[in-house]
């Protein structure tokens, strides 16, 4: 089986390359995606190989990038749009929620806008303000959008291809502080096809409590599970991968087994994804719960200056503290 160790960033790059090779209608758009290869180099080398018409350096105008991508999609293209940083997606928010999300429904199914909006997300890289947002809840709240989040190189490679192939618009979150972490990527088609775009993955099996996480928090939760194991506690870690739709059956299977659930994400907990997940668990698996579903996430403040971000972001200790509280019930 063909495979190699790639960083998450290189996994995305390879996935985009393969999608472009397989479908001439796939075009990449965004600020600096051409010669520079994007500020995170995700599109590095692609303009050189596919040309300026397929890797389009756009004006610095996010609504324009997404809005013109809608038009390209209506013309039969499959645009993959790069938003440079999470905090820069807001100028395009109107196009995404008013147009991208609703086009299929309002056209009574006549129109499709198969596009992927890639958003480097989250903090932990010491960035200035507006560069460390976790805005997944805004998009998951909007019907018509699909929202997914990769956490490792193999998923990056496969999920980006699956997202491009789907006929629904996909918001594709990339954990920027994990861009340079390496993982094994099997580039055989069958190897990636075993997991659908909207399926979660049990990344560590356990029996005492379930950690539900995605994107940058998957690594943190795995570290927490390692630490807990040293204390004799067996934690199950689920990488949700898909945020809309949630893979609810997989979540419930795990919680019914462990009786304890802790949702971990970087975004503010107030009206965050954790609130929805906790509610669904108590609605669907109430009698299996040994403790309330707990949340570990950002505080309800704007993302702080980077010198404070280590206190804002959930870390191994905050996760373990929540595990302790859950298991004390």
């Amino acid at each position, binding site marked *: 089986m063909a495979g190699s160790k790639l960083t998450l960033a290189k996994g995305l790059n390879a996935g985009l390359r393969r999608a472009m090779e397989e479908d001439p209608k796939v075009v990449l758009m965004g600020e600096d995606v051409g010669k520079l290869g994007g500020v995170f180099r995700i599109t590095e080398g692609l303009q050189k190989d596919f040309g300026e018409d397929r890797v389009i350096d756009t004006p610095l105008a996010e609504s324009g990038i997404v809005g013109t991508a809608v038009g390209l999609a209506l013309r039969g293209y499959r645009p993959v749009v790069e938003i440079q940083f999470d905090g820069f997606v807001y100028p395009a928010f109107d196009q995404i929620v008013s147009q991208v999300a609703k086009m299929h429904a309002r056209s*009574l199914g006549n129109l499709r806008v198969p596009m992927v909006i890639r958003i480097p997300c989250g903090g932990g890289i010491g960035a200035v303000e507006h560069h460390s947002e976790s805005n997944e809840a805004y998009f998951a709240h909007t019907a018509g959008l699909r929202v997914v989040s990769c956490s490792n190189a193999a998923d990056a490679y496969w999920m980006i291809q699956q997202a491009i192939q789907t006929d629904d618009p996909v918001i594709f979150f990339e954990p920027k502080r994990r861009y340079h972490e390496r993982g094994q990527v099997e580039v055989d088609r069958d190897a990636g096809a075993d997991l659908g775009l909207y399926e979660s993955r049990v990344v560590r099996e356990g029996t005492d409590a379930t950690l539900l996480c995605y994107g940058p928090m998957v690594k943190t939760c795995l570290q927490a599970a390692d630490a807990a194991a040293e204390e004799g506690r067996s934690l199950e870690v689920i990488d949700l991968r898909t945020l809309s739709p949630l893979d609810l059956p997989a979540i419930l299977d795990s919680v019914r087994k462990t009786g304890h659930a802790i949702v971990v994400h970087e975004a503010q907990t107030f009206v965050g994804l954790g609130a929805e997940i906790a509610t669904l668990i108590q609605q669907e698996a109430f009698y299996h719960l040994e403790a309330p579903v707990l949340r570990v996430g950002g505080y309800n403040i704007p993302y702080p200056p980077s010198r404070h971000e280590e206190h804002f972001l959930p870390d191994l200790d905050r996760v373990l503290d929540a595990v302790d509280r859950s298991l004390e019930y």
Partner: protein
Amino acid sequence: MSDNEVAQGRSAGADMAGAFESSGGHGPTPPSQITGHYSADNPDMVQFVDADGNRLGITEANEPYSCIVEEMTSQDARTIYRDLVLVRRIDAEGHALQRQGELGLWPSLLGQEAAQVGAGRALRPQDYAFPGYREHGVAWCRGVPPENLFGMFRGVNNGGWDSNANNFHLYTIVIGNQMLHGTGYAMGVKADGAVGTGDPDRDTAVMAFTGDGGTAQGDYNEALVFASVTAAPIVFFIQNNQWAISEPNDKQFTIPPYQRSRGFGIPGVLVDGNDPLATYAVCKAALDRARAGEGPTLIEAYTYRMGAHTTSDDPTKYRSDAEVEIWREKDPIKRMRGFMEEKGHADAEFFAAVDVEADEIAARIREACQTMHDPDPVTMFDNIYVEEHPVVAAERAEFQAYQASFVEEGSH
């Protein structure tokens, strides 16, 4: 236009304001005259017929388009006249149906028929139009059945026509969004190689519509940037009807759109939006240019919204009757008919037949509207996603079970 010329334009505007006063009107000075960019003799304005339909002579502004008008036949004139009358009648019916409670809302195009028919008739079948929500006249010219427009205003759907059947996109309510969709579509046209081939059936252009208020939106301005730097085959068609609900031109811009386009690297044309020959000619020229691969053009059609913004609006709160009367004198149908009678393009029988046809269409669409059924409520869960989404599926099932519970209880 130089600063000096702009200043002269202001001066001409002052004269116009004087004329307004002498016409016996009271109330505020029309905003177009305040900004001074428009006047009856603005040398930038492309016109071919005066308010009575008299053919105007060649000017520097209309000379580039005069050959297009010269080539128009009597049949062309009759087609445009028929469009103007029928579109006005469709619009009037929409207004009446709203007042009768059949529609929740209606945005009237009254006064803007010439702008829309001129644009609509200049489009070829393969071209694509991206409207706002007032482009009933363009929809008519594209072949969209007028009753299809009523669905969204009645509330039975959010669009209701197949955009690709007539290359007429769904109405767009959020002001300016569609300018980017048109631009992106045009970028795709160019990427497909469907410009500059010389094949009249293949070369394709896009036309995107908004109003004077739309020119203040970010998406409008971003669309001009994208179109300019990509040389996209698109024509931006601005219907400056002078009122963005209650806000006049001078609340939207200090440099008018046709001049401002040049700052984006896009040629701008000012056309008398109540002159159907002029709007047709400038649109045809701009679309030909786009199809030839020569890039975008912005057309500002200077016109007037004779009615309210929508049926929810009350224009008496912000503008004077006298101002409306000035524009009633510039009525596009009166002008077109005067021109045709002078040139002998049609006889009284033709004009009478068009009026009969208008009555028939009005009756037809009234019946279609009144007999339009509400869709099965469960269809609101349809087409949210292309692929099945478990949340939508679960909520659909929940809704159906809830509805069925009433049936089981025999309550309906």
